[in-house]
């Protein structure tokens, strides 16, 4: 992924992803959501870039 999306690109992602799940972000909260999303992306970039062994799986706790 590209961790350094432009502010406009972050806004586009926020709007598109909100549409996918049927979530309307009211205009008065829009900038706050974009700011938080950008903060998350900045943290996510290095996590996504970190190479893990392919056999490293999630560790689910659910046991049927």
């Amino acid at each position, binding site marked *: 992924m590209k961790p350094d999306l432009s502010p406009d690109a972050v806004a586009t992602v926020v709007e598109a*992803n909100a549409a996918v799940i049927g979530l309307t*972000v009211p205009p008065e909260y829009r900038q706050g959501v974009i700011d938080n*999303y950008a903060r998350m992306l900045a943290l996510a970039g290095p*996590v996504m870039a970190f190479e893990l062994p392919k056999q490293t799986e999630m560790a689910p706790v659910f046991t049927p």
Partner: protein
Amino acid sequence: MTASITLDSVAIAEQVRSGAVTAAAVTDAALGEIERRDAALNCFTTVQADAARRAARDIDRRRQAGEALGPLAGVPFAIKNLFDIAGVTTVAGSKIHRDQPPALADATAVARLKAAGGVLIGALNMDEYAYGFVTENAHDGPTHNPHALDHVAGGSSGGSAAAVAGGLVPLTLGSDTNGSIRVPSAFCGIFGLKPTYGRLGRSGAMLFAESLDHIGPFARSVRDLALAFDLLQGPDPADPAATDRPPEPTLPSLGEGIGGLRIALAGGYFREGAMPEVLAGVDAVAKALGATAMVTLPQVLLARSAAFIITMVEGASLHLDDLKTRPQDFDPATRDRFLAGALIPSQLYVKAQRFRRWYRDQVAEVFNMVDIILAPCTPCPAPRIGEDKMVIGGVEMLTRPNLGIYTQPLSFIGLPVVAVPVQRPGALPVGVQVIAAPFQEAKALRVAAELEKLGVCAAPVMS
């Protein structure tokens, strides 16, 4: 003998069992302190005076009838308002959940403390849905730090920590997803225990981020922490994360000292970005324990980031319906983060969870070399209420997102941690994390008990 609410739970229960004081008198003492001080502290969102007095009278009646009383006989306790209380609506710091019907039964943890003779006094303030480190709740107001009323109590279990530090009750319960027991313990100068993930059953507690949520106790003495932890252990079939390991009581070994324990400081990440007084607290604890070795955990920053992402995704998932239909009813401090969390691509979440597995294995290697690791709880003492930014090492940063930088990478993999307080006369306290390998709470508690015995750590009532 006059009932004193400033004693610890073990001492109060001993007095009640011996007949030196009545449970009714102790309960009245707690209610009196709440009446006298909570307008200033704002710890309690619900006080169940009548139910508490009834429970206390029942304990006194049973004692007079010669019945055996439990280890918490007559001990007033209170809980973060995300735990169910039968007949009370569980709000979890929210406005939205005030519309919900009352809980039908007590949460498992509440029921266990009651069964041991504890007297439930009420429910305590928190950050909305446990998403925060400051307990500046928009609906219920901020909880004030008993050490300095214009400073935060920490969060999200701020009411739980401040009620203990202020001497309103000796024992409370809270929850910790990223630091919500350890941060307020540090800011309020008391002891707190975040057990191993899955160790204590969470059923009847409203979750925040299910794969990271823990519950645990706050107290002013280590023996109270150990006692509460021991009482809270046991199966909880309704919680899919609850361990099926048999309970492992910690109280019997509490006084064994630190002989044989390999204790080290956390270096690298955990020595960076903290105010000098915080590191001085860690060093004072290490010196008292004779710990000089330093260990480095790998990729701690990524661990914190991954915990951040998982929290946003799971938290948003839990509240998605309300985010769609009534976002205006969320606390402004949580709303935008929840909304943003709902929009995170699945690949980020899965990678964060896969990284968690890797990181767990790496840290397990470190625990082959040491038994206990010491680290700061927070980068600073309690900020002022409303303080949005802070400066550490000449760098200005947002306060709220950075209070958990040292706690998040540890709860991320469910390690047990005792937060121990270092008092600083004339200044706000700081906290130190005493970290053990998974399911080794007994070792961390032994270290905390040793620090208490040495006088390095203490949690006096701030009145």
